[in-house]
């Protein structure tokens, strides 16, 4: 029975702990991310949401606890780029782009599997991603010329390119850290639409968000964080009526 449950989960997290100088950023955090669903992680500022993403992608190492991808436990010593290549794509609150590279460069880097080999890169067959790039850019609605440098993009366009790169990168799950933070209402709706499209395609997505209204009609399941622990979980309807959640938000 328990084994079965894990099978439906893409990511299972058990008792994850991380403290920074005595402050618990993650305090015995446990949660499950179901396949083909959108899961939201909400909570006040500093409640450990981003820390969770960093711990999953091994940008920081957790003090204790276990993380499973499918049924396999991820070794805590695995380097971050290795975790990524296991199929975890992610974005950042503040889009991490390559300033001096173009939109096309970003997506080709994300799509390519063997550009880090000098010999393959020089003598191998040239990989052609044009169709895929077109498709992804159409999906996210980033209609700038392909040779636009990242540094010349607006804030919203940067967010879109970051999302596009995560989509392009071969993955089984996407971790999106506040994809609509600081974005204007029009673009906000467009991003919601993109996420719905991705949902339809059967993507597994975890999204960190501040704003309850944004996720209510978008996600399948919600975890509410406070002080690095899950204080409530459920489908959006249940969370909406949960007193503890209101307290955590209002009492802030």
């Amino acid at each position, binding site marked *: 029975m328990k084994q079965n449950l894990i099978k439906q989960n893409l990511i299972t997290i058990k008792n994850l702990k991380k403290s920074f100088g005595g402050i618990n950023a993650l305090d015995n955090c446990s949660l499950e991310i179901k396949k083909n669903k959108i899961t939201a992680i909400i909570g006040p500022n500093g409640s450990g949401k981003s820390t969770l993403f960093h711990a999953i992608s091994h940008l920081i190492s957790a003090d204790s606890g276990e993380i499973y991808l499918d049924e396999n436990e991820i070794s805590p010593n695995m380097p971050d780029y290795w975790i990524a290549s296991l199929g975890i794509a992610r974005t950042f609150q503040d889009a991490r782009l390559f*300033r*001096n590279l173009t939109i096309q460069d970003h997506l080709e880097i994300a799509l390519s599997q063997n*550009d*880090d080999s000098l010999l393959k*890169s*020089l003598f191998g067959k040239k990989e052609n991603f044009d169709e895929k790039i077109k498709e992804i850019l159409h999906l996210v609605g980033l209609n700038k010329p392909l040779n636009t440098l990242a540094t010349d993009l607006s804030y919203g366009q940067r967010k879109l390119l970051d999302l596009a790169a995560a989509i392009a990168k071969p993955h089984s799950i996407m971790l999106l850290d506040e994809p609509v933070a600081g974005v204007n209402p029009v673009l906000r709706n467009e991003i919601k639409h993109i996420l719905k499209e991705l949902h339809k395609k059967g993507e597994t997505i975890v999204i960190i968000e501040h704003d309850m209204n944004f996720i209510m009609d978008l996600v399948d399941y919600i975890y509410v964080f406070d002080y690095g622990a899950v204080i409530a979980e459920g489908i959006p309807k249940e969370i909406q009526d949960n007193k503890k959640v209101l307290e955590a938000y209002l009492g802030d």
Partner: protein
Amino acid sequence: MIEQYIMSVFIYVCIYIILTLSLNISLGYTGLINLGHIALFGIGAYSSTLLMMNLDLPFIISFLSAGIITSLFGLLLVFATKKLKGDYFALATLGFSFVIYSLLLNLVGLTRGPLGIPGIPKPSFFGITLTTTFSYLLFAIFITALCVFIIYKIVHSPFGRLLQATRDDEIGLRVLGKNTNLLKYKSMMISAFFAAIAGSLFAHYITFIDPTSFVLHEVILLLTMVIVGGIASFKGSIIAPFIIILIPELLRFLSIPSAILGPMRQIIYAFILLLILYYKPRGLFGRVDLA
């Protein structure tokens, strides 16, 4: 006589084009603030010389082996310093150049120390020996063209693009599944390989090397060339050596005594470096900032 002089200046230009391009691979394209490049140049010069003179290896073999030996030193340098960032990395690479300098000076059994190594044989292959300056110039141009072509291919390949991504945002690249440490190792090895080719070209041309050719003020000259041309600017790294070498050469025609010529040249280099850092930090042809 004047032809000899002009040819010799252009041989230097060739050597510095390779050197500047090779430094731009690590410093400009990959963003490794490498202040130890001159040491790699020196290791290349000494390796090629010693392999040819002590082991009687043919020129071509020594020439290429020097590249491989030096790229291993490059790997050692960047592997040892992999945890250091920014100023600390820069200081460590600067320290590396001091360490190599003092080894060249003190491993007397191998390098003859401050006496230097005279009588380095001229290159010879297929029964031809490059005894005249003109033949050496042709050889230098050929090697330089080959290096320029290969480096062009590397930096404009998908691999070269990853190097630039490493420079711009390492974490952003790692979460896309790329091993940026490995990319840095490879970048430094390629950079060191070509530095050695330049070093070897230098040693077999002037036929005498001693540790003073590989000291601090040479680092300034190299940095000036890379920065004047532009960080990660391929075109800039080819044009800048012409400008930077030819300007002080004009001093020679003003019949300035040689005791003044040396420091004057250094002053000009340092001055150009400071001016470009202030007025045009991206260099003449660059579009990338050194962060």
